[in-house]
């Protein structure tokens, strides 16, 4: 049993004898593996590019003005003391969610060694007006120099000069979608209508395109101006964006902030959870369908083996009569399944590679309805797509081979050799 070369040879010769059928089932495996690799690449490419973009240009942790717990009144009453607390309701915009004394909060946040940097923002829902176009627009007040460290606007500028924003108190930066919606270009003056009806006339100093539709629909101004538009005092902002230096520990940063400040802090995974969940579900459906393709290919392998066993009962009987053991007969047919699977899967890997190359080189019209815009399919490329697909196809074929191979071992040589043809 040590040397299985002769078993392999028998398996191989029998397969070569039935060329057409063997090649057909081999092709089935190849196609299955190719489709599997392509699907994995496509789905992973989508998710990875999305995640990569988010990691690069979105805050890893986002702190917002929403209080996690009411600070009043139970926390003010020390247990066991019979003290009385007078709670005066804050009459100043209690419905707004703001971070008060944001500089102090930021100091607290930046003490965490996991935090790389933090930057304050004021986010407002406003109305934008340009020419005849009037549209609701999400406006953010930022500190341009530190905001750039998170959202990389400077790199994404398609016209204008990002640095100019800091020097222009009435400057406004447009995302490319927003610019398109208003048909505005650098140098134009856009009107922003605040909630209280005040109108601010702002000069477009640049247009950027990050590729993430959510961000590209926004407009950006200096923090002070936004506080002005929104009617916030200088020590109030609505959000703080944070970059961490270890992405795997972003949840620790968020937890820490929640504990320290009582403000709501969420990680990028939580923020993108609905999109990520959607991706996950689409992936599952695709993998499920592809799984069946490979399964059908496995049936192809089983089919070759079943016919081979049926047509080769005579040969099996001969092999048994010259001393081949049941286990050796089984191995012969398992080998047949494996030969078809391995060659088929290897070809499938090559085809899959080619498919990825072709698909990732085709230009497509970018769609603004997807989460991430791109001018071509974002295909993932990773060795594990190939090893996984290869392994999966071989495993399926191996399982498909077991029953026919066992039937082969069960052939009773006596009845066949007796020669009652």
């Amino acid at each position: 049993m040590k040397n299985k070369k002769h078993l392999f040879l028998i398996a191989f010769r029998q397969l070569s004898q039935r060329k057409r059928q063997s090649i057909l089932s081999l092709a089935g495996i190849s196609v299955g593996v190719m489709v599997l690799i392509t699907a994995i690449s496509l789905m992973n490419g989508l998710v990875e590019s999305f995640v990569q973009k988010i990691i690069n240009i979105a805050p890893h942790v986002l702190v917002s003005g929403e209080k996690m717990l009411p600070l009043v009144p139970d926390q003010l009453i020390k247990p066991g003391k019979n003290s009385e607390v007078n709670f005066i309701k804050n009459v100043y915009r209690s419905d707004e969610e703001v971070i008060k004394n944001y500089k102090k909060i930021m100091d607290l946040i930046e003490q965490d060694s996991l935090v790389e940097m933090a930057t304050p923002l004021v986010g407002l829902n406003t109305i934008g007006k340009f020419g005849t176009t009037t549209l609701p627009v999400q406006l953010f007040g930022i500190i341009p120099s530190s905001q750039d460290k998170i959202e990389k606007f400077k790199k994404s500028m398609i016209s204008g000069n990002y640095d100019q924003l800091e020097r222009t108190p009435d400057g406004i930066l447009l995302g490319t979608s927003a610019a398109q919606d208003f048909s505005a270009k650098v140098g134009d003056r856009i009107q922003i209508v605040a909630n209280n009806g005040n109108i601010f006339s702002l000069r477009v100093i640049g247009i950027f395109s990050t590729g993430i539709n959510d961000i590209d629909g926004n407009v950006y101004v200096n923090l002070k101006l936004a506080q002005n538009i929104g009617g916030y005092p200088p020590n109030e902002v609505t959000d703080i964006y944070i970059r961490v230096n270890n992405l795997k520990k972003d949840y620790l940063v968020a937890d820490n902030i929640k504990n320290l400040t009582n403000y709501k802090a969420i990680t990028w995974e939580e923020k993108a959870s609905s999109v990520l969940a959607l991706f996950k579900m689409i992936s599952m459906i695709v993998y499920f369908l592809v799984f069946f393709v490979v399964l059908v290919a496995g049936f192809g392998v089983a089919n070759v083996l079943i016919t081979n066993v049926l047509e080769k009962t005579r040969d099996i009987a001969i092999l048994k009569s010259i001393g081949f053991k049941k286990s050796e007969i089984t191995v012969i047919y398992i080998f047949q399944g494996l030969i078809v699977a391995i060659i088929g899967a290897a070809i499938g890997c090559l085809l899959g590679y080619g498919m990825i190359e072709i698909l990732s080189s085709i230009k497509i019209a970018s769609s603004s309805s997807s989460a991430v815009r791109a001018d071509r399919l974002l295909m993932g490329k990773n060795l594990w797509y190939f090893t996984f697909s290869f392994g999966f196809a071989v495993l399926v074929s191996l399982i498909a081979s077991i029953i026919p191979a066992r039937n082969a071992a069960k052939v009773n040589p006596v009845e066949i050799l007796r020669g009652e043809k």
Partner: protein
Amino acid sequence: MNDIIIKAENVNKTIVNKNGGEVVSTTILPDISLDFRRGEFSAITGPSGSGKTTLLYLIGALDMPTNGRIFLEEKEISAMKEEELAELRNEKFGFVFQFHFLLPEFTALENVMMPMLARGRTTVKRAREKAAELLKQVGMEDKQNNKPNQLSGGQQQRIAVARALANDPIVLLADEPTGNLDSKNSENIYSLFEKLNRENNQTIIVVTHDEHFALRTHRKIHIIDGKIDQDIRTKEPGSSIQS
């Protein structure tokens, strides 16, 4: 000199078949006892359906008796497991069948090598040399690289004989080896058997319908209805057999 290498004791073979709903059991060999000596060339004859093939397969460990015991060189083969039987068939027995059962995908030489490779005890090189030698013995040295479908029935049967001899079997078993051959080819096979017995002292048990040939062997066992009807030793093992 008369050492017994195969011994069958009260062997019974009954086959149970399920025919639709009812179970039909057929006794092919009711109770047979006989033994074979080393170097003996025996012929088993008898009418069709008398149980010759069944008996031969039992002796050669291809089949198991329902009752009774069979010994090969004092080891009871009727008590062995499937794995051991396979090894026995490989090492101790050589089979030749009525239909020249060769593996169609392999050349004559490779077919003869197969029993040697089965247990992996020899190297491929040694197996090839031995196979070539055996093919020479059966007069097929010039057909080494032919596939079975490029050979005549008689040629295929000689190669089957060479294959049966591959592992120097204790006993060569043949079931109507000339049943599918014309008289000239039949004569070739018979002479080959005689030569093997004479020159190598090869023990041979052959089932045949050919009464004339049966008389040329050392011993003629006639079977009717699974029972020994006649068992005559015409010559002593080792004595020359004249054609």
